[in-house]
């Protein structure tokens, strides 16, 4: 079953083209990765899907809803973790979770989520005193606290140490196993390879490849590299010099 359908999405800011022409579908229960260089249009794409941006053209359906017209309804079914979005410095971890869970009709158990993300020890710490990784984990927890059908996670593990990264991956798999569809924007191709069922490679506002991680590697043509990795494959697709 398709839960997200994007057709011919285009968006520009002034004369800067962010997304030129992007189309893809995401199936229920998959972890769908979006990778590509900085400025390729990844964030604009997911922000349009979540109804945070108004596209210039193209159609988007999420759970059968139009993210623009049915924005309010969509908010109940989608959890979004944004880049560079903070909380008040003096807000405590448990207060943030308790507050955000009050926004939803059927929220997840925030105490359990707090434990799953290893934040229980920090429950009384204020946001301003958390480390980068702890802020990130709280941000993921807030995206999941509403028991969403779809979770959109932008730069999920940026700033996390290796152990925290792996713990977060495990958590995301667990979330998916509960039936949540995950859209993951990432710079880490290791993360994409480990987690994603399918990956869309975006470059200069277009999708240049969309496949399983294994197929992307298998189809990679990288001169001078005998056994290319996913990173080699993606760089070959997005680096104009290598093409």
């Amino acid at each position, binding site marked *: 079953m398709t839960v997200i359908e994007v057709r011919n999405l285009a968006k520009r800011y002034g004369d800067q083209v962010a997304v030129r022409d992007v189309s893809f579908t995401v199936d229920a229960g998959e972890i769908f990765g979006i990778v590509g260089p900085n400025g390729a249009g990844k964030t604009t794409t997911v922000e349009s899907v979540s109804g945070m941006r108004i596209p210039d053209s193209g159609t988007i359906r999420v759970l059968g809803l139009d993210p623009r017209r049915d924005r*309010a309804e969509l908010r109940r079914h989608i959890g*979004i973790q944004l880049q560079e979005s903070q909380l008040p410095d*003096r807000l405590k971890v448990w207060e943030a979770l308790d*507050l955000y869970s009050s926004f939803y009709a059927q929220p997840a158990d925030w105490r359990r989520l707090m434990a799953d993300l290893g934040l229980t020890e920090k429950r009384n710490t204020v946001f301003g005193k958390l480390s980068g990784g702890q802020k990130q984990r709280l941000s993921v927890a807030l*995206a999941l606290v*509403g028991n969403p059908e779809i979770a959109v996670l932008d730069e999920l593990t940026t700033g996390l140490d290796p152990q925290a990264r792996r713990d977060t991956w495990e958590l995301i798999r667990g979330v998916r196993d509960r039936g949540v569809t995950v859209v993951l924007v990432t710079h880490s191709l290791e993360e994409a390879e480990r987690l994603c069922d399918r990956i869309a490679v975006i470059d200069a506002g277009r999708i240049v490849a969309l496949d399983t991680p294994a197929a992307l590697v298998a189809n990679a043509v990288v001169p001078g590299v005998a056994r290319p990795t996913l990173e080699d494959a993606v760089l070959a697709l997005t680096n104009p010099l290598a093409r």
Partner: protein
Amino acid sequence: MNALRKLTVIESKLFLREPIGAFFGVAFPAVLVLVLGSAIPGFTDPSEDNGGRRPIDIYLPIVLALAIATVTMVTLLGVLSAYREKGVLRRLSTTPVSPMALLAAQLIVNVGALLIGSGLACVGAVVAFDVAAPENVGGLVVAFVLGSAAMCAVALLIAAVTPSARASSGLGTLVYFPMMFAAGVWTPGPIMPDAVRRVADFTPLGAASQAMQDAWAGSWPRPLHLVVMGGLTAAFGALAARSFRWE
């Protein structure tokens, strides 16, 4: 409603955790009255400049105007623009709760602080210096509410038109001091020159201050001041609503 209640509780806690903001919002007006009354020579003696009244009697409604200006131009404006700059509003806009609810919670908290602070100032003045209670309480409440609304609208408009928290607080300060001048902080009551008063009548805080002084003395606020406050509330409020950005 549950979300708005929770937001209001949380924003109140955050307000109190910011010691400087809490001081200026709640304690400052009372402290000012006590310092003025006990430290400035002659402040509690009848003066011929004021038609035989004591400066402290004239000054109390002006302190209330000052409290309105401080809470709106410093506390409310500071929090709103910081929330936008840090992405707090943006994050909220990803949930089913509108950032409008946070705005409402902020208004509730700040107006609450303003009421408590003003109440403390009045009680302090009555107890410490035997200032007479306002003769027209209804008129005073009307003037206070309309003046607060007009200044809230100014704060929202400044938050709406400035690109960053720094710019907001800069513009807020630029508005804050002339507003206090218009309210008569430096030229209270009869001391204010007529020309200044005629201009001040058309500013939100000048109108509020005059209207509160009138009500304190027993008459009703003049229609001019009510119209100025109501009109500015509507005009600035509408402009702010049109131009406010959540991110």
